């Protein structure tokens, strides 16, 4: 249960970061509070779009899904169920892999760092570090029982 709470809090923080980047990308904000021009370089690169949509939108959807599943997993009806834990681990792994790809693009292709993107990378990594052991231990418990 505790891991679902931690994931919910982290996913909510990630959702705000992704929303900030998404609102910037669609023009709601004039500039990013970044401290350097790196965020705008990354956001203006062709890699900031995927399948015709800003990459940040996928972040918004991903974090919203993580938040929703973790909150559902906290509901008394599903609190004892394993599926929220497993689903969170799968989603976190996908999110982590996608973020690793984006971060490698920043480092190797774009040669600029977006601090907000790095913030999001840290958040999804933390979620992954919480979700994966929880899924593995729940599996072990089940195998043991």
């Amino acid at each position, binding site marked *: 249960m505790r891991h679902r*709470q931690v994931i*919910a*809090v982290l996913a*909510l*923080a990630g*959702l*705000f970061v992704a*929303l*900030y980047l998404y*609102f*910037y*990308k*669609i*023009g*709601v*904000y*004039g*500039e*990013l*509070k970044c401290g350097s*021009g790196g*965020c*705008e*370089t990354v*956001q*203006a*690169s*062709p890699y900031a*779009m995927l399948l015709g949509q*800003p990459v940040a939108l996928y972040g918004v959807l991903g974090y919203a899904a993580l938040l929703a599943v973790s909150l559902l997993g*906290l509901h008394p009806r599903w609190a004892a169920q394993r599926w929220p834990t497993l689903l969170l681990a799968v989603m976190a792994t996908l999110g982590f892999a996608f973020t690793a790809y984006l971060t490698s693009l920043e480092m190797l292709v774009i040669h600029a760092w977006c601090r907000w993107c790095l913030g999001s990378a840290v958040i999804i990594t933390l979620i992954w570090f919480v979700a994966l052991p929880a899924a593995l231990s729940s599996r072990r418990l089940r195998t043991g029982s």
Partner: protein
Amino acid sequence: MRRFYLLLGALVIVGGALLYVAGKSKGGSSSAVTDVPPANDGFKGYTLGSDSAPIEVVEYVDYECPICALFATVQFPTIREQLIATGKVRWRIRDYPLRISAHPNSRYAALAAECAGEQGKFWPMADSLFLHHDWAMTGKDVSGLFRGFAQGTGVDLATYDACVQSRRYAGRIAASYQEGEQLGVNGTPTFFVNGRPYPGRSTSDGFKGYVDSLLAHRTTRR
């Protein structure tokens, strides 16, 4: 559990407030490019292609215009390859930022392109403005985004910022618009080939057919 939901609620309030404040405190506004511009410097637009090309195409362009963006991203690469790189055509871009409420950032985009052009990066900047054209669909402040485009082209940002803030080329843009008006331009993109309105379709095939026919005509006359 109750403490957890309280924490989550507090996070929602703080995060929402931060997003709201970020939206309120925008950076330099693009709408600053609307006052009386500095004087015209007589510049006649950036060109691509050989100075000795027998044919010159002048394109009056509005960077916020979706048809201009479509032309620039779909048709122009082929024109560049077939007509400009082969020395048949010299392409000249003139600014014609439409004065319509649906295009609030047209003049700012033209200014950004001119300021990148000052550092030899006009074409990469124009390409970026057209390639990432989603900015034109929001009507919001785009100064930071354009700055990112400029940085991507490799310009010196301090020089670019000074250029944009002082609206160094606003007079040039206004003069280009007036010249376009005098020539009868009333929409974008509008093309002139060797000084005459282009009668064909705005496609690479259309331009190729027209240019080839003009070149064949020149050869026959000789």
